[in-house]
C-alpha cells in the first residue's frame, strides 16, 4: 500500500466526516454486523459482574449513524484496513541490532490470531500487565534490539490494526481473576472516579447515560471491542487508551498518560465489561 493511496483515502473520509456531523442519529439500532460473510457478535448478555447494572452489552457501532455503520461492513470502505495493510509490509522489515524482523520469529501476522480477544492480560513470566502495544515493544526492544515505537506512532497504530484484525469475530474473554484481580480492582476504581472540574466518571457517561445525547454525541457504553478505531473526525486510527485520554480531557481533568499504570489497569477493566462481545478488528466511528 503506497502512501499516496492512504492520503487519498484520508482526504475522502475527512470530507465525509464533516458531512456526518450535520446528520441526526438514531437510537441504538438492532442490526447484525456481517463482514465478509462473517457474523460479528455486537450484542451479548452482560458479564456476571454487571448484572443489574447493564442488561446487555452493546458495541459502540450500534450507536453510530447509518453511513458510519456501513463503512465498517465492507473492508474496501473501511479506511482502517489500509493501516493494517501497511503493517503487513512492516512485518518483514528488519530493524535493530539483532538483524531481525517480526517474520523472523512469527511466520505471518495470522500467528497472532486470538491475542486481541484475551488482552490486556498479566504475562505469566514477568507478572506484568501487557496489552498488544506492550508485547510489540517487548519484541522490538528485547528480541530485535530495536527502539520501542511511540504509543501513538504510525508504526504502532498500523501494527495494532493488523494484529487486532487477526482476531476479528472472536469473542472477548479477558481474565479478571487470579493475577489480573488487583489490576482489575484498580481499573474499576478509576472507572467510577469523578475526575476534573466537571466531576464526571466513565460510569456517569457510559453506564448511567448511554443512549442519551451529550450535545451531538450519542453516548454508547464506551466498549473497547472495536479498537483500534478509525475516527472520521480525526482521520486516523486511535487505540483504546488514546480514546481514554480524550474522554478524561473532556471532563476538564488532567489526563493520565498512555501506557501509565492507571490507563493499563483501566484498559483491562473496560475490556472485561465487554466480555461476550466480539473483536471487530478495526472499527469505524465518527
Amino acid at each position: 500500500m503506497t502512501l499516496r493511496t492512504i492520503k487519498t483515502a484520508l482526504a475522502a473520509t475527512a470530507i465525509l466526516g464533516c458531512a456526518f456531523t450535520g446528520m441526526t442519529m438514531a437510537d441504538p439500532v438492532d442490526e447484525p454486523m456481517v463482514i465478509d460473510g462473517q457474523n460479528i457478535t455486537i450484542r451479548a448478555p452482560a458479564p456476571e459482574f454487571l448484572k443489574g447494572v447493564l442488561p446487555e452489552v452493546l458495541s459502540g457501532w450500534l450507536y453510530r449513524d447509518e453511513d458510519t455503520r456501513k463503512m465498517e461492513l465492507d473492508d474496501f470502505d473501511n479506511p482502517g484496513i489500509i493501516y493494517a495493510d501497511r503493517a503487513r509490509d512492516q512485518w518483514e522489515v528488519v530493524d535493530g541490532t539483532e538483524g531481525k524482523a517480526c517474520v523472523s520469529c512469527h511466520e505471518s501476522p495470522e500467528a497472532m490470531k486470538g491475542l486481541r480477544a484475551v488482552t490486556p492480560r498479566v504475562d505469566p513470566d514477568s507478572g506484568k500487565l501487557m496489552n498488544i502495544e506492550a508485547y510489540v515493544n517487548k519484541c522490538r526492544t528485547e528480541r530485535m534490539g530495536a527502539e520501542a515505537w511511540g504509543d501513538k506512532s504510525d508504526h504502532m497504530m498500523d501494527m495494532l490494526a493488523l494484529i487486532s484484525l487477526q482476531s476479528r469475530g472472536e469473542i472477548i474473554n479477558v481474565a479478571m481473576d487470579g493475577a489480573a484481580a488487583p489490576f482489575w480492582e484498580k481499573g474499576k476504581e478509576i472507572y467510577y472516579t469523578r475526575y476534573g472540574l466537571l466531576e464526571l466518571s466513565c460510569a456517569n457517561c457510559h453506564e448511567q447515560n448511554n443512549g442519551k445525547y451529550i450535545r451531538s454525541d450519542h453516548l454508547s457504553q464506551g466498549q473497547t471491542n472495536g479498537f483500534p478505531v478509525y475516527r472520521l473526525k480525526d482521520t486516523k486510527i486511535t487505540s483504546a487508551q488514546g480514546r481514554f485520554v480524550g474522554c478524561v480531557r473532556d471532563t476538564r481533568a488532567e489526563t493520565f498518560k498512555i501506557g501509565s499504570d492507571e490507563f493499563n489497569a483501566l484498559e483491562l477493566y473496560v475490556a472485561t465489561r465487554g466480555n461476550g462481545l466480539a473483536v471487530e478488528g478495526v472499527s469505524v466511528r465518527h
Partner: protein
Amino acid sequence: MKRQIVLGMIISAFSAGVAMAEVAPESVAYTDGAVAQSLTGTAGNPEEGRKAMVDRGLGNCVACHKAEMLKDQPFPGDVGPTLDGAGDRWTEEQLRGIVANAKMTFDGTVMPAFYKNSGYIRPGDGYTGKAAKEPIAPILSAQQVEDVVSYLMTFKE
C-alpha cells in the same frame, strides 16, 4: 486633567469595593440546596446569561439540556431534563443554588458544579488535559452565575 485622574481613582476604588463584596466559592451558604444571597450584589444580565449557557468553554448547559428558549442551538443534549418552565418550578434562590453547585440540590447528580474551586480530583486546565494552575478559577464567575440565574428566571411556560 486633574479632575479626570480623580474620577478614575474613584471609579477603581468603587469597582474594588464591588469585587470585595463578591461571595467566594468556599463561602457560599446553601440552605436545602438554595442560595439566598446574590453572589455579587449586582443584578444578573439575562443576555450575558444566555451566552454563558451556550458557550462550550463556559456553562455549555446545552450539552445536557434542551429548552424552547434555546431552540436555535444545534444539537442540544438530553442527559438532563428540559429546562422549559424552570423559572416557574424554582425560585431565584433555588436556581442560584442549582447553578452554583447542583449537588446540594440533587444528591450525586452528573450536573457539574459551576461555582466551586476546590475538592476536585485531577483538575485540568480547561480542555487541554494538563494540570490546572492554582488557584483554580470556578467554571463560571460569580457574575456569570447571577447572569445565568436571571436568564433561567425567564424560562416560563
